[in-house]
């Protein structure tokens, strides 16, 4: 029985067997054919020899193809991938890149805020201190307010004597026909002599 006498189905299974692709019942079936069918056995041997030849040829050609298939682009890509993987691993350890201009602007903003805060604090301090010191600047209130037309410097100062009693008072008044202030020590003797 020649190979041509074999059915295509049996040839495919034999080819699969030769390639080691069969298992179980199909493998047993094919092995039964090899034991009983000379054509099948011969076909299998042919396939095996072809397989060896192909295998040898494949092995011989694989080394050459390995050299020939060395591609610079692949190597570069592989190197890039490897570098990327290293970078990915090292990224957490590297400080983030920040723009120097942005950092300067940020520093300026922070400095401006600090300066504004200091200025505000200084103004509050000054205003508070002025309010506290304001009463000290008040002039003593005279016994009688001078007339608006009167001079601020009458040229006369009066200190009442304590023994004079409550009936004696001092008035700073404007004269009727003089722009200056007149000082009057007035003794209230209403009802007296």
């Amino acid at each position, binding site marked *: 029985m020649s190979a041509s006498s074999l059915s295509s189905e049996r040839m495919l299974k034999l080819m699969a067997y030769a390639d080691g692709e069969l298992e179980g019942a199909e493998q047993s079936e094919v092995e039964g054919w090899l034991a009983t069918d000379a054509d099948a056995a011969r076909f299998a041997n042919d396939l095996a020899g072809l397989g060896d030849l192909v295998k040898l040829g494949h092995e011989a050609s694989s080394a050459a193809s390995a050299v020939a298939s060395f591609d610079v682009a692949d190597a570069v890509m592989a190197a890039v991938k490897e570098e990327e993987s290293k970078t990915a691993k090292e990224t957490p350890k590297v400080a983030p890149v920040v723009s120097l201009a942005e950092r300067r602007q940020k520093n300026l903003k922070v400095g401006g805020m600090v300066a504004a805060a200091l200025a505000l604090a200084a103004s509050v301090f000054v205003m508070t201190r002025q309010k506290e010191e304001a009463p000290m600047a008040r002039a003593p209130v005279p016994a009688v307010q001078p007339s608006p037309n009167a001079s601020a410097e*009458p*040229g*006369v*100062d*009066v*200190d*009442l*004597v304590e*023994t*004079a009693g409550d009936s*004696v008072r*001092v*008035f700073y*008044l*404007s*004269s*009727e*026909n*003089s722009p200056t202030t*007149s*000082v*009057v*020590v*007035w*003794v*209230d*003797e*209403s*009802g*007296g*002599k």
Partner: protein
Amino acid sequence: MRHAFLSSHAVGRRGALLGALALGAAVIGHAPEASADAPPKAEVMVIHATKCDKKSVDPQIGDTPPALGYDCLKLVDKKTLPLTLNQASTTALPNGRTFQLLHTAKVASRFKVTASISPADGSAGFTKLADITADPNKPFNVGGFSYQGGVLVLTVRIVP
């Protein structure tokens, strides 16, 4: 050359003017005061102030003292009291009382005096009213002493 001459000429005139001013100031500053050694005195105008319907001020009074509710002012007397340091100077008033000034000090051309009045009941002694420090020729008034339905107002001016 002309510019330099004008500049020096202007400086010369200016210097002469400044020199004259300085000399004048020196002469004035070192001129002895006419009344430096004479004791000061107090010119006292005794004014009778009354309440009236029609305002009237004696023209002899000059600068009208504050009315304090008394519209009619009449000059009753005009006296001069010598102000010897630490010596009381007195003058009798129309209401029978006595007004006293005591010159206690002179500080930087200002005169410090103590004004006192005798008691209204005629008893001896004086009641101190006030310590007054006055510039020369600056008048001050002491008043309120009852007299004939009104009051007496004393206008005092210390004259060096």
